[in-house]
């Protein structure tokens, strides 16, 4: 499985925006399983990059490898000019990366308030910013002092995202934020992500929800069998029904 020359994609984006995060031929083994077979990826700053692909393609593994939760067995990961391939997870996170995992990672026994306090690493959360975050997610204010474990699935997802943005971060790694959520909630999240986009937040998001991807994505990277096989801007990708069909197995119903 030889990935196409992704250097092409990198050259493109470099022309317009700096790449905040780059993965060069990153491989990851988990036990005996070889999950990532040489991932090349360039995440431009200030844009939302969608990581697409079928189940088992290695999307979650890619996010986790960036954050150091799983060790890359080969290759290089560069964040903001620094080689972070072999750093420990807390050190990588402290460089300004926030992570919203697939299972949301909520501390169920801690209150909503405590979850947010913990996420605000540099001290008590800035009141202005906190007000803005709670404005985006009203239920969190309602359950402020309750243990987070009693929140519904949608509310937990909101808390997970709130934690990631309670302080400004250079990069957000978000894994399937709309999994299992009702369409109305998804719409609300689209609104939230658009607000983040307006603030030029850099986001790398794994998503299966096509509507969300098209609504907020600036760039697309498609993974198959542990490699990034296609990388393009969202407009280019939407226009190419052929590529969509081949890589995703369905078409986005894009405008030609």
């Amino acid at each position, binding site marked *: 499985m030889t990935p196409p020359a992704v250097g092409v994609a990198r050259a493109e984006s470099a022309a317009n925006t700096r790449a905040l995060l780059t993965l060069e031929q990153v491989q990851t083994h988990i036990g005996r399983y070889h999950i990532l077979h040489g991932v090349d990826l360039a995440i431009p700053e200030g844009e939302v990059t969608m990581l697409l692909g079928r189940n088992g393609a290695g999307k979650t593994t890619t996010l986790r490898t960036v*954050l150091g*939760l799983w060790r890359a067995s080969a290759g290089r990961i560069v964040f903001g000019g620094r080689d972070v391939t072999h750093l*420990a*997870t*807390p050190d990588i*996170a*402290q460089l300004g990366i926030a*992570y919203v*995992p697939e299972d949301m*990672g909520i*501390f*169920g*026994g*801690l209150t909503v308030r*405590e979850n947010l*306090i*913990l*996420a605000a*690493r540099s001290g008590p959360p800035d009141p202005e910013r906190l007000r803005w975050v709670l404005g985006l997610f*009203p*239920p969190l204010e*309602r*359950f402020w002092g*309750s*243990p987070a*474990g*009693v*929140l*519904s699935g*949608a*509310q937990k997802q909101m808390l997970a995202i709130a*934690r990631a943005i309670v302080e400004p971060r250079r990069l957000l790694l978000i894994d399937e934020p709309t999994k299992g959520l*009702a369409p*109305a*909630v998804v719409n*609300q999240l689209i*609104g939230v992500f658009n607000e983040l986009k307006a603030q030029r937040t850099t986001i790398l998001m794994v998503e299966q929800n096509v509507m969300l991807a098209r609504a907020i994505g600036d760039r697309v990277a498609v993974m198959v069998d542990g490699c990034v096989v296609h990388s393009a801007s969202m407009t280019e990708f939407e226009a190419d029904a052929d590529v969509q069909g081949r890589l995703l197995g369905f078409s986005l119903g894009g405008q030609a």
Partner: protein
Amino acid sequence: MNAPASLQPGTASLLAVWRVRAAHYGAHLLPVALGLAALTVIPFSTWASLTIAGVAMGVIIFIMAAGLGLVFGLMNILNFAHGAFITFGAYVAAAVLARMSGWTQADDAVLNLLAFAACGAAAATVAGVLGYATERIIIRPVYGAHLKQILVTVGVLIVAEQLVPVFWGGVPVPVTRPALLRGSILIGQVAVERYRLVAIVTGLLVYGGMVAVLARTRIGLLIRAGVQNREMVEALGYRIQAVFILVFVAGSALAGFGGAMWGLYHELITASLGSEVLVLTFIVIIIGGPGSTSGAFYAALLVGLTANYVGFLAPKLALGSNIALMLAILMWRPTGLLPASRN
């Protein structure tokens, strides 16, 4: 924008909040229920002294179990060497008390209490140092290898148990209580051992202190979060490793202190003290739920009370009754009374 129905706090959520609160209070009431049940079969004055003994024993077991439970909840490490810290704590305390016989025999309350504090502090310090050494030398090389880590810490426990007769001889060592803490006082019709009252107060202070640190401080927050989801805490940018070492050393120091208190409680200690008590601490952790300090506290009270009540009613069944209690709770609530990890 209007929040759609799915975002309102529905009845399901409120019910969930109340269920969590009920579980909490339920656990608190279990020891009380046990006490009341015992009252129906044991005459009052005996019941009173047994209850005091049970609570005193319970809080001492709590002190010994608390550290082990947090370490277990935080890093999934079952540290059998914890028993060694308990044993050494007891023996160090006994040695310190023997040396300070001038102060312990004196009629002066202040000197007595200072002697008590000194032996406790010495036990805690020695155990803390041993804990640090154990973490660095013994456990760190086998992080993540659960099997090896159990085996290795069991080895340490055995070696420690064998070293005791080398340093202190093979016969049981008496532990002399300071004069102030000897004997009993009369409350109404009931004779209450002074030391037991002191133990209860000390235990409550330790429990209160731990709860305060866990609930009010940032590091307490980190510990509670780490017990639930260690990976996420690291992903938030915290070095949980450093927190863990701190918890491990503090837990070991507490074990030593608990060992000292246990020694004073029974007034006679042997080399196998640690491993015998270790079984009780395991029972407490299983009943209370790993990683939960409050769970451990109420479980310890249950264990202490059960041991004393059953010890009076049917002495041969004493240890068995605690194991039966543990198995019963395992069947009813496999994750413990107040589990901290909710993954």
